[in-house]
């Protein structure tokens, strides 16, 4: 979708982040809404202009203009006819503009199950038979130019899945499965955040959708599939610490005996763009900080602080996790 360039350049000096994500779509399901936003905005400005003009005349206008405005006819015209005409036109136009949102996804579209949990996202890539092929967390990889269907679920309370540049939001409700379509037109990372208040550190529950060229996407997925089968133990200190410190009670690393499912899957944690569900860049320092005291970074999250561990141990753990690619 094209976007009005003029507005962008004039405001750029004020807002570093202009255009904001809602008005900067990266795919068709956000694109039609972005156009709709501009239409609605134009409508609002015009109607506000009409009301302000009428008010100006009523207060400061000449007697002739004022007497024209001062009767029941104005109410019928401005209060009844105007909204009915504008709104009907808007409803019809708006719904036809965003028709693409209601069409079913193409058969055979890739499906991913995304489950909102307090306060992170469980990601499960499904194979064509609907079984889980790969686990991941807080990051979703998709191929450019293909519609991907997300099965949105919740494990605890209501969350809401929202990547503004790819789609409007959809709630994740316990006991229900909501389907969302997303499609990216160009490669890139698209940030998102939980939009339904889910208690505690709801403010710090982000994630990233990464769109790759289709060929690259397939290569990544194939690599991950292959790695599942054989992951030789590193025998390093980090691995031993991972076992002895009890990390595996909650975390899983595919191909190893570490099989905890309560927390985020760490099989590919070394490749992730972010840590702590979209809130920190992923590097050795942040990894160590997170392991040592995640509570200081994201108060209330379910990962206990490990400040009892000596710094060396934390570093070795971080080194081990970095290698999980």
């Amino acid at each position, binding site marked *: 979708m094209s976007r009005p360039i003029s507005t962008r350049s004039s405001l750029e000096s004020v807002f570093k982040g202009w255009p904001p994500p809602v008005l900067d779509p990266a795919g068709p399901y956000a694109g039609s809404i972005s156009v709709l936003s501009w239409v609605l905005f134009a409508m609002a400005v015009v109607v506000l202009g009409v009301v302000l003009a009428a008010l100006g005349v009523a207060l400061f206008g000449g007697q002739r203009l004022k007497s024209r405005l001062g009767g029941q006819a*104005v109410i019928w015209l401005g209060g009844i006819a105007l909204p009915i005409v504008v709104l009907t036109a808007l*409803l019809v136009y708006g719904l036809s503009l965003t028709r693409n949102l209601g069409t079913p996804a193409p058969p055979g579209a890739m499906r991913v199950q995304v489950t909102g949990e307090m306060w992170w996202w469980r990601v499960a890539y499904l194979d064509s038979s609907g079984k889980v092929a790969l686990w991941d967390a807080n990051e979703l990889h998709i191929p450019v130019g293909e519609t991907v269907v997300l099965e949105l679920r919740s494990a605890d309370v209501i969350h809401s899945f929202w990547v503004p540049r790819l789609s409007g939001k959809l709630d994740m409700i316990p006991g229900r499965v909501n389907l969302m379509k997303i499609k990216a037109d160009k490669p890139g990372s698209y940030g998102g955040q939980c939009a339904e208040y889910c208690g505690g550190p709801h403010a710090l529950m982000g994630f990233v959708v990464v769109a790759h060229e289709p060929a690259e996407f397939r290569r990544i997925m194939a690599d991950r599939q292959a790695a599942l089968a054989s992951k030789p133990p590193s025998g390093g200190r980090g691995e031993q610490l991972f076992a002895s410190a009890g990390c595996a009670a909650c975390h899983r690393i595919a191909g190893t005996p570490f099989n905890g499912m309560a927390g985020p899957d760490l099989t590919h944690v070394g490749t992730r763009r972010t840590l702590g569900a979209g809130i920190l860049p992923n590097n050795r320092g942040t990894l160590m900080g997170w392991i040592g005291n995640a509570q200081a970074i994201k108060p209330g999250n379910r990962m206990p602080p490990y400040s009892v561990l000596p710094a060396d141990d934390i570093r070795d753990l971080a080194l081990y996790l970095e290698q999980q690619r």
Partner: protein
Amino acid sequence: MTSETGFDPELYKRFPVREDRPEGELEELERLWEQPKGWARLTIVNNNYVGLWYVAAAFLFFLLAGILALVMRVQLALPLQGILPQETYNQFFTMHGTVMMFLFAVPMMEALGVMLLPQMLAARDLPFPRLSAYAFWAYFVGGISFFASLFVGLAPNGGWFMYPPLTGKAFSPGINADFWLLGIGFIEISAIAGAIEIIVGVLRTRAPNMTLDKMPIFAWGMLVFASMIIIAFPAVIMCTLFLELERAFNWPFFDPTRGGDPLLWQHLFWFFGHPEVYIIFLPAAALVSMMIPALARTTLIGHDLIVLAFLATAFISFGVWSHHMFATGMPRLSVGFFAAASMAVSVPAGIQVFSWIATFASGKPRHNTPTLFVLGGLVIFVMGGLTGVMVAMVPFDWQVHDTYFIVAHLHYVLIGGALFPVFAVFYYWIGMTSSRPLSERLGKWTFWLMFVGVHVTFLPMHITGFMGMPRRVYTYLPGGDLTFTNFLSTVGAFVLAAGVLLFLVDLARNFRFTVNKGAGNTYGGGTLEWLPTGLYSARSIPVVKSRYPLWDDPDISRDVEEGRYFLPGAPTGNRETLITSPVRAEPQYVQIMPGPSVWPLFSAVGTAGFFLLLTIEAYIPSFASGILAVLCVLRWMWDTDRVAAAEEVDVGAGIMLPTYVTGRSTHGWWAMVILLIVVFMLFLMTLFSYLYLFGVQPDFWQEPPALSTGFVALGLYGAAAGFAWLGRRLLAREKSTLWSPSTASIVGALLLLPALIADYWSVSAVLDPVMSGQGAVAHAFLANQMMLVLIAALMALYLGARTARNLVIRPRNNTVDLVTLFVVYTAVQGSASALIIRLVSGAG
């Protein structure tokens, strides 16, 4: 000219009477209406006082919630600040929303109703002064205790709409959520009490000949407002009750793993929550429609259209609740319906906005503080309405839902639609209750600070939302470019606060409370509240001939003051007011009004104690407090329903009116019928929940008990209704002793209990309230019924006591009438729920 009650309209021509009133009459009136002094002031029930306390309390909660907002804005001024820790912030935003909605906006509208309505209708007071006092005290005591939970860190933290499962026991094990559920559930009861009062007041205590089409537009607004409360508030009472039952007894109303559904809460909550917005807006808009004619020095253009707009708003608002749920994945067809309905609401809003513009255009507007607040509110409201149209467009809502765009939208609507009008009201009507008007100079400063503050705070929030910032976040990350607009909003919030602070300075300098020596009609209004008043309101109650009697009859103030209209004195020797017919306002009878009493205060404290002690799980003190409350209510009722010495009295110009009437034309009967509508709505919401879970969770639906298991209960309910009816019949027969009719009524009321037990027996044998949503709602039907049965039992005791004291009047008596009505209703509802539980069958 036809008549509604048989009253001859020709009689109105006798007014204003020529003869002077007898000496001493005015002194007698003053003596009767004199208010207690010192500590006994707390026993005052008169609307001039209670209304002002009510307004002051609501304004206090506005200030408190505003302070919370300021602290939150400081926390959000920059990313990742630690001024408010996460948990405290979550409590703050929950309290800000809850207090603004439930303790400021709705109570403020009720308070203004209590304060202004009787004077606008030229009544001496509202029809149930003690009920207003009870509503006020319950609200004030309950509200202050609720707010205090913040200081001990126990304030609710689930957001003002408290979505389960987050607010369920598993994820909110503390008592924070219980404070919300019990505290707000209780404050809703006070709101309903106020609404009953307002409906009966508007329909039955208008000045003679103030037909519906001559009624001031504020009375229309309050009538629609109160009716909407009657319909909408039971929904939120029911869902808070459900959630409390789920938390306390593990009944799975909202648990999808046991046949409940989290969305059931959202449907019930928003069935209340959306009308709530119009419940706040309509009275404020009506007040604007009252002020504009005076400010523009002309009559309101489009009066009838505005009344139609009120009715249309009320009607449509009950059909749009789901627009708060567009992002829950609703079926597309219903989404389209709710989008269209949501947009349709803007038509009645448009009618009002253009009526106001037309009125300004046709008059000569004064440029003073109330005008500024009215105009500023209009502009802000229109802006909020336009973003409202935007979010009614479903796909757009999917983007901005639950973001700062919505925060901006709702603040524009509520500030423009309610807060600015309320400030205009303060300036405009202050002359009724203060001996000095507020300062025009400070007022203009107040206005401009607030107006600029609102825009600087909330306009950038639209963009903050587009930037991707969800609402209800205690902080945000740096580098996402959210800092600039957030910082701007914080600056704006302080400008807005400076305006409010200046208003407080103005109040401190100029507000001097008075009832009868007010600064008066500073802005030249034409309606009856500007008649000269004493403690008794207007000296005599005028015959109303137009919508602006003070403009159309220059002598009316003098004639009223000299007692040349209805009820110039106190013919029964009591406080009294005229009860008139609902449509044409023809005089029907003289109501004897209760005076100061400590019982409403005690029963309010008892009720508040019951709920608050229940929250902290102090069960025995809680029930003791509840029993105390009930006893106080009964004690206050005890003085009512008495016969005056004279059966008929002269209410002026030789017109004789009765002092004791029974049956459907009494104000008591009307109040009971409205109360039963509330009860019926509670029942209807339970029924909705039952059918809803039947629809969405069919796999959990069990075969209900067989129809035949309900026959015993149905028979007993039938007998209960029969006995109650018999009691009322027997009373009318001269031969029987007083005990035989009362015994029949009491037996009728008490038979409800075995009926309920029989029903419970067979239902609980099959359905377990903990096992499934179906079982939980089935038991909610029974719990609902139990409440009614207990009230009926209390009524039976009360009737017995009155019979023993010979206070039951023959041949017809209001107490017996109301007991009969209540028992028959309870029997019918009990039968209906017994049938529904058994007939909604999964196999069918």
